[in-house]
């Protein structure tokens, strides 16, 4: 499997996003050790310094923390905080966009709610 890195956005941001994904989706449980910078580097074939920058971004946000001499670990409560952040983003990216598009098409909020209900039943 080839893990593509998007060359049009800063790679350290993409690395941070990958780690966030892993935490949110449970592949990296809280208090578990995160792969080392060098492991990230050879896995994605990116510069180790870039990988370190991505990891440090999450350390700054309190998502990861450093155990001296051992490595980086997922902070307690990291998953919940990331979920909150994602929900906010979900609201902006999907709900608001949907509402704007619905408005253009003349769909009322009630109709939209009905459509969502219908979609949920359909699954």
């Amino acid at each position, binding site marked *: 499997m080839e893990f593509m890195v998007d060359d049009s956005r800063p*790679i350290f*941001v993409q690395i941070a996003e990958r780690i966030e994904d892993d935490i949110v989706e449970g592949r990296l449980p809280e208090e578990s050790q995160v792969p080392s910078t*060098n492991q990230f*580097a*050879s896995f994605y*074939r990116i*510069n180790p310094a870039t990988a370190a920058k991505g990891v440090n971004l999450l350390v700054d946000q309190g998502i990861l923390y450093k155990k001296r001499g051992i490595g980086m670990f997922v902070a307690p409560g990291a998953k919940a905080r990331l979920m909150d952040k994602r929900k906010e983003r979900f609201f902006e990216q999907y709900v608001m966009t949907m509402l704007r598009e619905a408005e253009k098409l003349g769909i009322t909020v009630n109709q939209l709610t009905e459509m969502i209900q219908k979609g949920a039943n359909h699954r």
Partner: protein
Amino acid sequence: MTAVVEVSRLTKSYRDVTAVDDVSFAIEAGKIYGLLGRNGAGKTTLMQMITAQAFPTIGELRVFGESPFENNRVLSRICFIKESQKYPDNYRVADVLDLCSDLFPNWDRDFADRLVEAFRLPPKRQMRKLSRGMLSSVGIVAGLASRAPLTIFDEPYLGLDAASRSLFYELLVEDYAEHPRTVILSTHLIDEVSRILEHVIVINDGRVLIDEETDSLRNRAFTVSGATADVEAFAKGKTVLHRETLGGLASAIVVGNPGADDRQLARSLRLELDNVPLQQLIVHLTSRKSYGKEAKA
């Protein structure tokens, strides 16, 4: 950060051309640099001066804090692998690598042996009987196993297929992670290498066009596309690197990072904003001579 290479107002002129024109920059220790630019931009001349193989016309040059000319303290710490490297006619692959173990103090024989196998090199074969790709592989093996504090690869992979190039990047990143050193990678295959570069120096017409961290360069421009009139309205007052039109549609590459106002404007004009891959950005930058001046203004 200590500078491994310091270049100040360096110029190299031949009778009727100026290959390197008043160039200044510094290479910091322990990073992987990309020296990018079109063919004939002056990259090779620059590296030849850094390694004391060519003489500057004017300017200052310090490598590991000293002049590299006839200086073993500096030269023994440099390994310069170039596409056009010549080898003695009667040399075999094993002869080159054996000599390397004398020349480079950090030479790792086991690593070299593993690399020879990985690149499927026949150690007993004469250099002049190697295919172009194999010749490149010898250089790559020498460059990696030298573990030289300053390792320079100048278009090291002529004739190598995609699989071997990919192997080279993989091995470079792995070995660099374990044995950090300063690496300069000069190439025009920007797409392939950009993710392993920490810092990029772009040379165009013998001058430094960009000297920046790679990741910050990825935020340097964006594409806007939509109806021609709307794209023009959006681009007004902005620096446009490149324009393309197709029927009533247009797309433009705009310098900068779109702010909230830009996004709002784009939304109201129903324009799409996209990121620009590094390769595309550099191609457009180096095909526009006036960019350097506009960007500074």
